[in-house]
């Protein structure tokens, strides 16, 4: 399946990605599984997505937790806890 990925703030800066189109193997993917999948790209990916930093995720603009299931065509985003206002 194909998804669109977005990264924000510290994640965007460190991973040097703001957005990418990603083709995933055709199987059930949760947010946690996607993090583990991306973490295999290398040290900085593992540190950012599976490390000590709190990472929040959204699917199609809705905040979700690690157990949320990703579907074909979804827009998935990873970012730190929010600090606006």
């Amino acid at each position, binding site marked *: 399946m194909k998804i669109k990925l*977005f990264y*924000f*703030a*510290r994640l*965007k*800066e460190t991973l040097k990605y703001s957005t990418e189109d990603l083709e995933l193997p055709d199987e059930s993917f949760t947010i946690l599984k996607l993090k583990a999948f991306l973490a295999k790209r290398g040290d900085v990916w593992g540190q950012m997505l599976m490390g000590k930093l*709190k990472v929040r995720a*959204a699917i199609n*603009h809705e*905040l979700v937790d690690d157990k949320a299931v990703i579907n074909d065509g979804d827009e998935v*985003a990873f*970012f*730190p*806890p*929010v*600090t*606006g*206002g």
Partner: protein
Amino acid sequence: MTVRVQTEDFDVGLEINQLRQARKDIGAVVSFVGLVRDLNEGDDVTQLTLEHYPGMTEKSLSSIINQAKTRWNILDALIVHRVGTLQPSDQIVLVVVSSAHRGDAFSACEFMMDYLKTEAPFWKKEANSKGEHWIEAKSADDMARDRWKIEK
């Protein structure tokens, strides 16, 4: 009910007047303005950069207004939040709520700020004399939001 994310500054007086329009049923207008302080946790702030998630941020702000509407009798509400590069004393965010009575307007406005601070996708990067760093989320902000889950 209006939500805007913009780089431009806003005019509080103008925004309040536009929200009021010619309505004669408004008894109370409460507004909140958040500003860039030149001192944050002991550091001299020289600049603040705000990033957001276009699309999700606006949806999140609209959802916060809708939650406030279900809890209090409010007549209208506005959220304006700036993004981009700001200096000390610059305006960051404006929340305005109109209501027939003051209690609803005060509660709804504070509720909206507490939720915005913890749920709306904005991120702040601070520059001071030592360099730049991303601001960490504060547990005090989570606690401020969580108050609304028990009290009415």
